[in-house]
Protein backbone atom coordinates (compact mmCIF):
# COMPACT_ATOMS: atom_id res chain seq x y z
CA UNK A 1 0.00 0.00 0.00
CA UNK A 2 2.70 2.40 1.04
CA UNK A 3 4.69 1.63 -2.07
CA UNK A 4 1.76 2.33 -4.34
CA UNK A 5 1.15 5.63 -2.61
CA UNK A 6 4.77 6.58 -2.91
CA UNK A 7 4.80 5.78 -6.60
CA UNK A 8 1.64 7.83 -7.02
CA UNK A 9 3.21 10.73 -5.17
CA UNK A 10 6.33 10.66 -7.30
CA UNK A 11 4.18 10.62 -10.38
CA UNK A 12 2.16 13.56 -9.08
CA UNK A 13 5.30 15.49 -8.19
CA UNK A 14 6.66 14.90 -11.64
CA UNK A 15 3.44 16.07 -13.27
CA UNK A 16 3.31 19.23 -11.19
CA UNK A 17 6.93 20.00 -11.97
CA UNK A 18 6.20 19.45 -15.63
CA UNK A 19 3.14 21.66 -15.57
CA UNK A 20 4.94 24.54 -13.88
CA UNK A 21 7.83 24.11 -16.27
CA UNK A 22 5.45 24.28 -19.22
CA UNK A 23 3.94 27.47 -17.87
CA UNK A 24 7.39 28.93 -17.36
CA UNK A 25 8.35 28.02 -20.90
CA UNK A 26 5.15 29.54 -22.20
CA UNK A 27 6.27 32.83 -20.68
CA UNK A 28 9.57 32.88 -22.43
CA UNK A 29 8.91 30.97 -25.65
CA UNK A 30 6.77 33.62 -27.36
CA UNK A 31 9.51 36.14 -26.65
CA UNK A 32 12.19 33.82 -27.97
CA UNK A 33 9.97 33.06 -30.96
CA UNK A 34 9.70 36.77 -31.62
CA UNK A 35 13.45 37.28 -31.38
CA UNK A 36 14.16 34.20 -33.47
CA UNK A 37 11.69 35.21 -36.18
CA UNK A 38 13.08 38.71 -36.31
CA UNK A 39 16.37 37.24 -37.46
CA UNK A 40 14.78 35.41 -40.39
CA UNK A 41 13.77 36.31 -43.88
CA UNK A 42 10.08 36.98 -44.36
CA UNK A 43 9.67 34.49 -47.22
CA UNK A 44 11.36 31.86 -45.14
CA UNK A 45 9.10 32.76 -42.20
CA UNK A 46 5.90 32.48 -44.21
CA UNK A 47 6.83 28.97 -45.26
CA UNK A 48 7.21 27.77 -41.72
CA UNK A 49 6.49 30.05 -38.80
CA UNK A 50 8.40 27.99 -36.26
CA UNK A 51 11.65 27.32 -38.07
CA UNK A 52 14.90 28.31 -36.45
CA UNK A 53 16.90 31.16 -37.86
CA UNK A 54 19.62 29.03 -39.40
CA UNK A 55 21.58 31.99 -40.65
CA UNK A 56 20.68 34.86 -38.34
CA UNK A 57 20.44 38.04 -40.33
CA UNK A 58 20.12 41.51 -38.93
CA UNK A 59 18.80 43.21 -42.02
CA UNK A 60 15.33 43.42 -40.45
CA UNK A 61 16.74 45.50 -37.62
CA UNK A 62 18.57 47.82 -39.97
CA UNK A 63 15.43 48.22 -42.05
CA UNK A 64 13.18 48.72 -39.03
CA UNK A 65 15.36 51.50 -37.75
CA UNK A 66 15.58 53.15 -41.14
CA UNK A 67 11.98 52.97 -42.29
CA UNK A 68 9.31 54.90 -40.55
CA UNK A 69 9.87 56.91 -37.44
CA UNK A 70 10.64 54.03 -35.15
CA UNK A 71 14.08 55.32 -34.26
CA UNK A 72 12.60 58.72 -33.57
CA UNK A 73 9.94 57.25 -31.30
CA UNK A 74 12.60 55.23 -29.55
CA UNK A 75 14.59 58.35 -28.75
CA UNK A 76 11.47 60.21 -27.64
CA UNK A 77 10.59 57.47 -25.18
CA UNK A 78 14.20 57.42 -24.08
CA UNK A 79 14.49 61.05 -23.08
CA UNK A 80 10.96 61.09 -21.63
CA UNK A 81 11.70 58.08 -19.46
CA UNK A 82 15.01 59.46 -18.25
CA UNK A 83 13.53 62.86 -17.42
CA UNK A 84 10.62 61.12 -15.71
CA UNK A 85 13.06 59.19 -13.55
CA UNK A 86 15.00 62.32 -12.57
CA UNK A 87 11.92 64.40 -11.81
CA UNK A 88 10.25 61.57 -9.93
CA UNK A 89 13.29 61.13 -7.72
CA UNK A 90 13.64 64.83 -6.97
CA UNK A 91 9.93 65.26 -6.32
CA UNK A 92 9.30 62.10 -4.34
CA UNK A 93 12.41 62.57 -2.23
CA UNK A 94 11.42 66.16 -1.45
CA UNK A 95 7.86 65.24 -0.54
CA UNK A 96 8.88 62.11 1.33
CA UNK A 97 11.49 63.99 3.29
CA UNK A 98 9.28 66.92 4.23
CA UNK A 99 6.35 64.77 5.20
CA UNK A 100 8.30 62.27 7.26
CA UNK A 101 10.54 64.81 9.02
CA UNK A 102 8.33 67.78 9.77
CA UNK A 103 4.85 68.55 10.97
CA UNK A 104 3.39 71.58 9.26
CA UNK A 105 0.05 72.84 8.11
CA UNK A 106 -1.30 70.25 5.65
CA UNK A 107 1.56 67.79 5.95
CA UNK A 108 -0.73 64.88 6.66
CA UNK A 109 -3.06 65.98 3.89
CA UNK A 110 -0.25 66.12 1.35
CA UNK A 111 0.82 62.60 2.23
CA UNK A 112 -2.72 61.30 1.94
CA UNK A 113 -3.15 63.16 -1.33
CA UNK A 114 -0.29 61.25 -2.89
CA UNK A 115 -1.26 57.93 -1.37
CA UNK A 116 -4.82 58.34 -2.64
CA UNK A 117 -3.34 58.24 -6.14
CA UNK A 118 -3.04 54.49 -5.62
CA UNK A 119 -6.79 54.27 -5.23
CA UNK A 120 -7.96 56.79 -7.82
CA UNK A 121 -8.03 55.02 -11.18
CA UNK A 122 -6.11 57.67 -13.05
CA UNK A 123 -6.90 56.08 -16.38
CA UNK A 124 -10.54 57.11 -16.02
CA UNK A 125 -9.34 60.73 -16.06
CA UNK A 126 -8.23 60.43 -19.67
CA UNK A 127 -10.96 62.66 -21.07
CA UNK A 128 -10.82 65.49 -18.53
CA UNK A 129 -7.02 65.50 -18.66
CA UNK A 130 -7.24 65.91 -22.41
CA UNK A 131 -9.68 68.81 -22.01
CA UNK A 132 -7.52 70.46 -19.38
CA UNK A 133 -4.39 70.18 -21.53
CA UNK A 134 -6.24 71.46 -24.56
CA UNK A 135 -7.58 74.51 -22.70
CA UNK A 136 -4.11 75.36 -21.43
CA UNK A 137 -2.50 74.69 -24.79
CA UNK A 138 -0.30 71.96 -23.33
CA UNK A 139 -0.94 69.31 -25.98
CA UNK A 140 1.86 68.34 -28.33
CA UNK A 141 4.93 69.67 -26.61
CA UNK A 142 8.11 67.79 -25.91
CA UNK A 143 7.40 68.07 -22.18
CA UNK A 144 3.67 67.28 -22.32
CA UNK A 145 3.97 63.66 -21.29
CA UNK A 146 6.20 64.43 -18.34
CA UNK A 147 3.14 65.65 -16.45
CA UNK A 148 1.27 62.34 -16.53
CA UNK A 149 4.34 60.15 -16.31
CA UNK A 150 5.77 61.86 -13.23
CA UNK A 151 2.38 62.15 -11.56
CA UNK A 152 1.60 58.48 -12.04
CA UNK A 153 4.95 57.43 -10.63
CA UNK A 154 4.53 59.67 -7.60
CA UNK A 155 2.14 57.77 -5.29
CA UNK A 156 4.27 54.65 -5.00
CA UNK A 157 7.53 56.62 -4.93
CA UNK A 158 6.34 58.94 -2.17
CA UNK A 159 5.13 55.97 -0.15
CA UNK A 160 8.44 54.18 -0.47
CA UNK A 161 10.52 57.29 0.21
CA UNK A 162 8.47 58.29 3.23
CA UNK A 163 8.73 54.81 4.70
CA UNK A 164 12.46 54.74 4.17
CA UNK A 165 13.35 58.24 5.38
CA UNK A 166 11.44 57.57 8.60
CA UNK A 167 14.06 54.99 9.48
CA UNK A 168 16.99 57.42 9.10
CA UNK A 169 17.81 58.85 12.54
CA UNK A 170 17.17 62.56 12.95
CA UNK A 171 20.42 63.00 14.80
CA UNK A 172 22.01 63.00 11.36
CA UNK A 173 20.17 66.22 10.49
CA UNK A 174 21.51 67.82 13.64
CA UNK A 175 25.02 66.59 12.96
CA UNK A 176 24.85 67.97 9.43
CA UNK A 177 23.77 71.38 10.73
CA UNK A 178 26.55 71.27 13.32
CA UNK A 179 29.05 70.64 10.57
CA UNK A 180 27.85 73.78 8.87
CA UNK A 181 25.49 72.43 6.22
CA UNK A 182 22.55 74.54 5.20
CA UNK A 183 19.11 73.05 4.75
CA UNK A 184 19.53 71.91 1.16
CA UNK A 185 22.99 70.51 1.76
CA UNK A 186 21.67 68.54 4.70
CA UNK A 187 18.82 67.20 2.59
CA UNK A 188 20.71 66.35 -0.59
CA UNK A 189 24.25 65.74 0.57
CA UNK A 190 23.63 63.92 3.84
CA UNK A 191 20.21 62.26 3.75
CA UNK A 192 19.79 61.60 0.04
CA UNK A 193 22.89 59.40 -0.36
CA UNK A 194 21.61 57.23 2.48
CA UNK A 195 18.42 56.56 0.51
CA UNK A 196 20.29 54.78 -2.26
CA UNK A 197 18.48 51.43 -1.90
CA UNK A 198 15.05 52.99 -2.21
CA UNK A 199 16.15 55.44 -4.90
CA UNK A 200 17.19 52.52 -7.09
CA UNK A 201 13.72 51.03 -6.66
CA UNK A 202 12.14 54.32 -7.69
CA UNK A 203 14.47 54.57 -10.70
CA UNK A 204 13.47 51.13 -11.89
CA UNK A 205 9.73 51.42 -11.38
CA UNK A 206 9.41 54.91 -12.81
CA UNK A 207 11.57 54.11 -15.83
CA UNK A 208 9.62 50.97 -16.70
CA UNK A 209 6.24 52.62 -16.20
CA UNK A 210 7.23 55.60 -18.38
CA UNK A 211 8.70 53.46 -21.13
CA UNK A 212 5.65 51.21 -21.25
CA UNK A 213 2.97 53.89 -20.93
CA UNK A 214 0.37 53.93 -23.68
CA UNK A 215 -3.02 55.63 -23.16
CA UNK A 216 -1.83 59.12 -22.34
CA UNK A 217 0.70 59.24 -25.12
CA UNK A 218 -2.18 58.20 -27.34
CA UNK A 219 -4.44 61.11 -26.44
CA UNK A 220 -2.03 63.90 -25.54
CA UNK A 221 0.34 63.62 -28.50
CA UNK A 222 -0.85 64.02 -32.08
CA UNK A 223 2.38 65.28 -33.57
CA UNK A 224 4.27 62.51 -35.40
CA UNK A 225 7.61 63.88 -34.31
CA UNK A 226 6.73 63.50 -30.63
CA UNK A 227 5.30 59.98 -30.70
CA UNK A 228 6.49 57.54 -28.07
CA UNK A 229 7.57 54.00 -28.78
CA UNK A 230 4.22 52.49 -27.71
CA UNK A 231 2.43 54.54 -30.35
CA UNK A 232 5.23 54.16 -32.87
CA UNK A 233 5.15 50.39 -32.70
CA UNK A 234 1.41 50.35 -33.32
CA UNK A 235 1.71 52.51 -36.40
CA UNK A 236 4.64 50.43 -37.54
CA UNK A 237 2.53 47.31 -37.26
CA UNK A 238 -0.27 48.85 -39.30
CA UNK A 239 2.15 49.98 -42.01
CA UNK A 240 4.05 46.72 -42.29
CA UNK A 241 1.43 44.16 -41.37
CA UNK A 242 2.58 41.71 -44.05
CA UNK A 243 6.27 41.83 -43.46
CA UNK A 244 6.16 39.86 -40.25
CA UNK A 245 9.86 39.46 -39.64
CA UNK A 246 10.41 43.19 -40.03
CA UNK A 247 7.54 43.77 -37.61
CA UNK A 248 9.11 41.34 -35.13
CA UNK A 249 12.39 43.20 -35.33
CA UNK A 250 10.56 46.43 -34.51
CA UNK A 251 8.82 44.76 -31.57
CA UNK A 252 12.13 43.49 -30.25
CA UNK A 253 13.66 46.95 -30.59
CA UNK A 254 10.78 48.44 -28.63
CA UNK A 255 11.32 46.15 -25.65
CA UNK A 256 15.11 45.86 -25.90
CA UNK A 257 15.97 48.49 -23.26
CA UNK A 258 13.66 46.88 -20.73
CA UNK A 259 14.87 43.37 -21.49
CA UNK A 260 18.50 44.45 -21.13
CA UNK A 261 17.70 46.12 -17.81
CA UNK A 262 15.97 42.95 -16.67
CA UNK A 263 18.89 40.77 -17.69
CA UNK A 264 21.18 42.85 -15.47
CA UNK A 265 18.94 43.79 -12.55
CA UNK A 266 16.28 41.07 -12.53
CA UNK A 267 16.40 40.65 -8.78
CA UNK A 268 16.11 44.37 -8.08
CA UNK A 269 13.36 44.79 -10.63
CA UNK A 270 11.30 41.95 -9.16
CA UNK A 271 11.79 43.37 -5.70
CA UNK A 272 11.11 46.95 -6.75
CA UNK A 273 7.99 46.31 -8.76
CA UNK A 274 6.35 44.21 -6.07
CA UNK A 275 7.44 46.41 -3.19
CA UNK A 276 4.38 48.63 -3.48
CA UNK A 277 2.14 45.64 -2.88
CA UNK A 278 4.21 44.29 -0.04
CA UNK A 279 4.63 47.64 1.67
CA UNK A 280 1.34 49.21 0.57
Amino acid at each position, binding site marked *: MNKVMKAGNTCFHFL*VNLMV*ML*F*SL*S*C*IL*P*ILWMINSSLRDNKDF*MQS*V*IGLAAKPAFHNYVEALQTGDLWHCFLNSGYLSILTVILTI*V*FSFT*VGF*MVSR*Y*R*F*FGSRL*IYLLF*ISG*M*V*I*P*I*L*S*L*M*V*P*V*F*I*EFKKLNLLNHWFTLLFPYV*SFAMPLSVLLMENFIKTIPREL*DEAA*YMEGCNFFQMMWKVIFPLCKPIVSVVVITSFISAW*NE*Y*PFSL*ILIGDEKLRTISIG*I*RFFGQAHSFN*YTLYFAA*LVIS*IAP*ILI*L*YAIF*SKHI*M*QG*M*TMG*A*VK*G
Partner: protein
Amino acid sequence: MRKNPLQPKGWKIGTVLLLPVGVYIFMVIIPIFFAAYYSLFKWSGGKSMTFLGMQNYLDILRDDTFWLSFRNTAVFTLLMVVGQVGIAFVFTLFFTMKWMKWTEFHRRVMFITNIISAVVIGLLWQIIYSNQAGILNEFLRAIGREDWIRPWLDDPKIVLFSVAVPVIWQFVGYYLVIMTSAIASVPKDILEMAEVDGASGWKRSIYITIPMIYDTLKVCIMICIAGSFKTFDHISVMTGGGPGNSSMVLSLYNYDVSFSMMKMGYGCALAVMILVISLLLTLGSRLLLGGKRYE
Protein backbone atom coordinates in the same frame (compact mmCIF):
# COMPACT_ATOMS: atom_id res chain seq x y z
CA MET B 1 5.18 62.98 16.86
CA ARG B 2 6.62 66.01 18.60
CA LYS B 3 7.50 68.93 16.46
CA ASN B 4 11.00 68.74 15.04
CA PRO B 5 13.08 71.58 16.51
CA LEU B 6 15.09 71.75 13.30
CA GLN B 7 12.01 72.35 11.19
CA PRO B 8 12.58 75.13 8.66
CA LYS B 9 10.23 78.08 8.30
CA GLY B 10 6.84 77.52 6.78
CA TRP B 11 7.49 79.57 3.65
CA LYS B 12 10.59 77.51 2.96
CA ILE B 13 8.66 74.25 3.16
CA GLY B 14 5.93 75.74 1.01
CA THR B 15 8.37 76.82 -1.70
CA VAL B 16 10.05 73.45 -1.86
CA LEU B 17 6.78 71.54 -2.02
CA LEU B 18 5.06 73.90 -4.45
CA LEU B 19 6.20 72.20 -7.65
CA PRO B 20 5.75 68.51 -6.78
CA VAL B 21 2.40 69.00 -5.11
CA GLY B 22 1.29 71.47 -7.77
CA VAL B 23 2.03 69.16 -10.67
CA TYR B 24 0.32 66.29 -8.92
CA ILE B 25 -2.82 68.27 -8.12
CA PHE B 26 -2.85 69.57 -11.68
CA MET B 27 -2.77 66.01 -13.07
CA VAL B 28 -4.88 64.05 -10.65
CA ILE B 29 -7.21 66.31 -8.66
CA ILE B 30 -8.19 69.13 -10.99
CA PRO B 31 -9.25 66.79 -13.82
CA ILE B 32 -11.86 65.32 -11.49
CA PHE B 33 -13.50 68.76 -11.28
CA PHE B 34 -13.17 69.24 -15.02
CA ALA B 35 -14.95 65.93 -15.54
CA ALA B 36 -17.72 66.84 -13.12
CA TYR B 37 -18.23 70.23 -14.78
CA TYR B 38 -18.23 69.18 -18.43
CA SER B 39 -20.37 66.15 -17.71
CA LEU B 40 -23.28 68.56 -17.37
CA PHE B 41 -23.02 69.72 -20.99
CA LYS B 42 -23.56 68.46 -24.47
CA TRP B 43 -20.19 69.29 -25.98
CA SER B 44 -18.16 67.95 -28.85
CA GLY B 45 -14.96 69.82 -28.11
CA GLY B 46 -15.82 72.92 -30.14
CA LYS B 47 -17.31 76.30 -29.30
CA SER B 48 -20.92 75.33 -28.79
CA MET B 49 -21.92 73.92 -25.42
CA THR B 50 -25.44 73.17 -24.31
CA PHE B 51 -26.30 72.80 -20.65
CA LEU B 52 -28.02 69.50 -20.01
CA GLY B 53 -27.93 69.10 -16.25
CA MET B 54 -28.02 65.45 -15.30
CA GLN B 55 -29.24 64.33 -18.71
CA ASN B 56 -25.89 62.74 -19.67
CA TYR B 57 -26.01 60.53 -16.60
CA LEU B 58 -29.57 59.48 -17.29
CA ASP B 59 -28.57 58.68 -20.86
CA ILE B 60 -25.73 56.50 -19.64
CA LEU B 61 -28.15 54.45 -17.57
CA ARG B 62 -30.14 53.80 -20.74
CA ASP B 63 -27.08 53.18 -22.90
CA ASP B 64 -26.89 49.53 -23.98
CA THR B 65 -23.23 49.72 -24.89
CA PHE B 66 -22.46 51.06 -21.44
CA TRP B 67 -24.15 48.11 -19.80
CA LEU B 68 -22.49 45.70 -22.19
CA SER B 69 -19.06 47.11 -21.41
CA PHE B 70 -19.92 47.10 -17.73
CA ARG B 71 -20.82 43.43 -17.93
CA ASN B 72 -17.69 42.66 -19.96
CA THR B 73 -15.53 44.52 -17.48
CA ALA B 74 -17.07 42.58 -14.60
CA VAL B 75 -16.56 39.23 -16.35
CA PHE B 76 -13.06 40.24 -17.33
CA THR B 77 -12.16 41.29 -13.79
CA LEU B 78 -13.50 38.02 -12.42
CA LEU B 79 -11.44 36.07 -14.96
CA MET B 80 -8.38 38.05 -13.93
CA VAL B 81 -8.80 37.38 -10.21
CA VAL B 82 -9.39 33.68 -10.75
CA GLY B 83 -6.72 33.42 -13.42
CA GLN B 84 -3.93 35.61 -12.15
CA VAL B 85 -4.23 35.34 -8.39
CA GLY B 86 -5.63 31.80 -8.52
CA ILE B 87 -2.87 30.32 -10.64
CA ALA B 88 -0.21 32.27 -8.75
CA PHE B 89 -1.60 31.03 -5.44
CA VAL B 90 -1.56 27.39 -6.51
CA PHE B 91 1.96 27.78 -7.86
CA THR B 92 3.03 29.39 -4.60
CA LEU B 93 1.80 26.37 -2.66
CA PHE B 94 3.74 24.10 -5.00
CA PHE B 95 6.81 26.26 -4.55
CA THR B 96 6.87 25.61 -0.80
CA MET B 97 7.19 21.88 -1.40
CA LYS B 98 10.55 20.21 -1.19
CA TRP B 99 10.08 18.27 -4.41
CA MET B 100 9.53 21.40 -6.47
CA LYS B 101 12.57 22.02 -8.62
CA TRP B 102 14.07 25.25 -9.94
CA THR B 103 11.75 27.62 -8.12
CA GLU B 104 14.05 30.62 -8.51
CA PHE B 105 14.31 29.98 -12.23
CA HIS B 106 10.52 29.85 -12.52
CA ARG B 107 10.12 33.06 -10.55
CA ARG B 108 12.52 34.97 -12.75
CA VAL B 109 11.15 33.61 -15.99
CA MET B 110 7.51 34.16 -15.13
CA PHE B 111 8.24 37.72 -14.13
CA ILE B 112 9.68 38.65 -17.52
CA THR B 113 6.25 39.16 -19.05
CA ASN B 114 5.50 41.82 -16.42
CA ILE B 115 8.13 44.24 -17.54
CA ILE B 116 7.09 44.18 -21.17
CA SER B 117 4.61 46.85 -22.16
CA ALA B 118 0.97 45.89 -22.49
CA VAL B 119 1.03 47.20 -26.04
CA VAL B 120 3.77 44.81 -27.12
CA ILE B 121 2.09 41.93 -25.28
CA GLY B 122 -1.13 42.75 -27.13
CA LEU B 123 0.55 43.03 -30.51
CA LEU B 124 2.51 39.84 -29.95
CA TRP B 125 -0.60 37.89 -29.04
CA GLN B 126 -2.42 39.34 -31.99
CA ILE B 127 0.19 37.61 -34.13
CA ILE B 128 0.08 34.45 -32.00
CA TYR B 129 -3.68 34.28 -32.54
CA SER B 130 -3.54 35.21 -36.19
CA ASN B 131 -4.30 32.70 -38.87
CA GLN B 132 -1.41 33.50 -41.16
CA ALA B 133 1.56 33.63 -38.83
CA GLY B 134 0.06 32.42 -35.58
CA ILE B 135 1.87 29.78 -33.62
CA LEU B 136 -1.29 28.86 -31.73
CA ASN B 137 -3.02 27.46 -34.79
CA GLU B 138 0.27 25.98 -35.94
CA PHE B 139 0.56 24.24 -32.58
CA LEU B 140 -3.00 22.92 -32.77
CA ARG B 141 -2.31 21.57 -36.24
CA ALA B 142 0.85 19.93 -34.96
CA ILE B 143 -0.98 18.05 -32.21
CA GLY B 144 -3.70 17.08 -34.64
CA ARG B 145 -6.51 19.21 -33.23
CA GLU B 146 -7.32 21.24 -36.29
CA ASP B 147 -10.95 21.22 -35.23
CA TRP B 148 -10.01 23.47 -32.29
CA ILE B 149 -8.81 26.23 -34.56
CA ARG B 150 -10.94 29.33 -34.18
CA PRO B 151 -10.86 32.89 -35.42
CA TRP B 152 -9.69 33.68 -31.91
CA LEU B 153 -10.10 37.44 -31.98
CA ASP B 154 -13.00 37.59 -34.44
CA ASP B 155 -15.53 35.29 -32.84
CA PRO B 156 -17.84 37.39 -30.61
CA LYS B 157 -18.56 34.36 -28.44
CA ILE B 158 -15.00 33.71 -27.35
CA VAL B 159 -13.25 37.01 -27.91
CA LEU B 160 -13.48 38.10 -24.28
CA PHE B 161 -11.68 34.93 -23.24
CA SER B 162 -9.16 35.29 -26.02
CA VAL B 163 -8.18 38.74 -24.82
CA ALA B 164 -8.19 37.58 -21.20
CA VAL B 165 -5.59 34.85 -21.70
CA PRO B 166 -2.64 37.14 -22.56
CA VAL B 167 -3.41 39.41 -19.63
CA ILE B 168 -3.58 36.48 -17.22
CA TRP B 169 -0.43 35.07 -18.78
CA GLN B 170 1.33 38.39 -18.36
CA PHE B 171 0.58 38.96 -14.68
CA VAL B 172 0.69 35.52 -13.02
CA GLY B 173 4.38 36.06 -12.37
CA TYR B 174 3.68 39.32 -10.56
CA TYR B 175 1.44 37.76 -7.95
CA LEU B 176 3.67 34.71 -7.76
CA VAL B 177 6.63 36.89 -6.80
CA ILE B 178 4.57 38.80 -4.22
CA MET B 179 3.28 35.64 -2.59
CA THR B 180 6.52 33.69 -2.68
CA SER B 181 8.35 36.64 -1.13
CA ALA B 182 5.70 36.76 1.57
CA ILE B 183 6.45 33.12 2.32
CA ALA B 184 10.19 33.70 2.19
CA SER B 185 9.79 36.30 4.94
CA VAL B 186 8.26 33.66 7.21
CA PRO B 187 10.93 32.41 9.61
CA LYS B 188 12.33 29.12 8.38
CA ASP B 189 12.14 27.44 11.78
CA ILE B 190 8.35 27.66 11.83
CA LEU B 191 8.19 25.51 8.73
CA GLU B 192 10.85 23.17 10.04
CA MET B 193 9.11 22.89 13.39
CA ALA B 194 5.92 21.96 11.59
CA GLU B 195 7.82 19.31 9.71
CA VAL B 196 9.13 17.87 12.98
CA ASP B 197 5.62 17.87 14.40
CA GLY B 198 4.51 15.77 11.49
CA ALA B 199 2.84 18.44 9.39
CA SER B 200 4.35 17.88 6.01
CA GLY B 201 3.19 18.42 2.45
CA TRP B 202 -0.40 19.46 2.11
CA LYS B 203 -1.08 19.52 5.83
CA ARG B 204 1.60 22.14 6.21
CA SER B 205 0.05 24.16 3.40
CA ILE B 206 -3.38 24.15 4.95
CA TYR B 207 -2.40 24.82 8.56
CA ILE B 208 0.72 26.93 8.20
CA THR B 209 1.42 28.37 4.79
CA ILE B 210 -2.07 29.51 3.81
CA PRO B 211 -2.86 31.26 7.09
CA MET B 212 0.50 32.97 6.91
CA ILE B 213 0.03 34.43 3.46
CA TYR B 214 -3.68 35.05 3.85
CA ASP B 215 -3.18 38.80 4.23
CA THR B 216 -0.93 38.93 1.21
CA LEU B 217 -3.51 36.99 -0.77
CA LYS B 218 -6.14 39.59 0.10
CA VAL B 219 -3.86 42.42 -0.99
CA CYS B 220 -3.22 40.59 -4.25
CA ILE B 221 -6.93 40.23 -4.90
CA MET B 222 -7.48 43.95 -4.25
CA ILE B 223 -4.63 44.98 -6.54
CA CYS B 224 -5.89 42.61 -9.18
CA ILE B 225 -9.45 43.96 -9.05
CA ALA B 226 -8.28 47.55 -9.24
CA GLY B 227 -5.86 46.75 -12.05
CA SER B 228 -8.21 44.68 -14.17
CA PHE B 229 -10.98 47.20 -13.89
CA LYS B 230 -8.94 49.71 -15.81
CA THR B 231 -7.54 47.38 -18.46
CA PHE B 232 -7.20 49.40 -21.60
CA ASP B 233 -3.96 48.82 -23.48
CA HIS B 234 -4.28 45.10 -24.21
CA ILE B 235 -7.83 45.21 -25.50
CA SER B 236 -7.35 48.45 -27.36
CA VAL B 237 -4.44 46.93 -29.23
CA MET B 238 -5.84 43.45 -29.82
CA THR B 239 -9.44 44.07 -30.81
CA GLY B 240 -10.28 47.71 -30.18
CA GLY B 241 -13.40 46.42 -28.45
CA GLY B 242 -14.58 44.43 -31.43
CA PRO B 243 -15.88 42.54 -33.24
CA GLY B 244 -18.87 44.82 -32.85
CA ASN B 245 -18.71 45.68 -29.19
CA SER B 246 -18.21 42.16 -27.97
CA SER B 247 -14.92 42.82 -26.16
CA MET B 248 -15.71 46.41 -25.19
CA VAL B 249 -14.74 47.37 -21.64
CA LEU B 250 -15.51 50.56 -19.73
CA SER B 251 -12.21 52.37 -20.18
CA LEU B 252 -12.16 51.62 -23.88
CA TYR B 253 -15.78 52.70 -24.31
CA ASN B 254 -14.95 55.93 -22.51
CA TYR B 255 -12.13 56.51 -24.98
CA ASP B 256 -14.29 55.66 -27.99
CA VAL B 257 -17.13 57.91 -26.95
CA SER B 258 -14.85 60.85 -26.28
CA PHE B 259 -12.29 60.64 -29.05
CA SER B 260 -13.89 58.68 -31.88
CA MET B 261 -17.46 59.97 -31.54
CA MET B 262 -16.25 63.28 -30.08
CA LYS B 263 -18.97 63.33 -27.42
CA MET B 264 -16.80 65.06 -24.82
CA GLY B 265 -19.58 65.94 -22.39
CA TYR B 266 -20.93 62.41 -22.45
CA GLY B 267 -17.38 61.10 -22.14
CA CYS B 268 -16.85 63.19 -19.02
CA ALA B 269 -20.05 61.87 -17.50
CA LEU B 270 -18.82 58.36 -18.25
CA ALA B 271 -15.48 59.19 -16.66
CA VAL B 272 -17.25 60.29 -13.49
CA MET B 273 -19.33 57.11 -13.49
CA ILE B 274 -16.25 54.91 -13.95
CA LEU B 275 -14.44 56.81 -11.23
CA VAL B 276 -17.31 56.33 -8.80
CA ILE B 277 -17.80 52.66 -9.69
CA SER B 278 -14.15 51.81 -9.30
CA LEU B 279 -13.82 53.74 -6.06
CA LEU B 280 -16.82 51.86 -4.71
CA LEU B 281 -15.32 48.62 -5.95
CA THR B 282 -11.96 49.32 -4.36
CA LEU B 283 -13.45 50.39 -1.07
CA GLY B 284 -15.98 47.57 -1.22
CA SER B 285 -13.38 44.91 -1.78
CA ARG B 286 -11.31 46.39 1.01
CA LEU B 287 -14.22 46.33 3.44
CA LEU B 288 -15.23 42.85 2.36
CA LEU B 289 -11.75 41.44 2.70
CA GLY B 290 -11.10 43.48 5.82
CA GLY B 291 -7.71 44.78 4.83
CA LYS B 292 -6.16 47.82 6.43
CA ARG B 293 -3.17 47.86 4.18
CA TYR B 294 -3.14 51.36 2.75
CA GLU B 295 -3.82 52.75 6.26
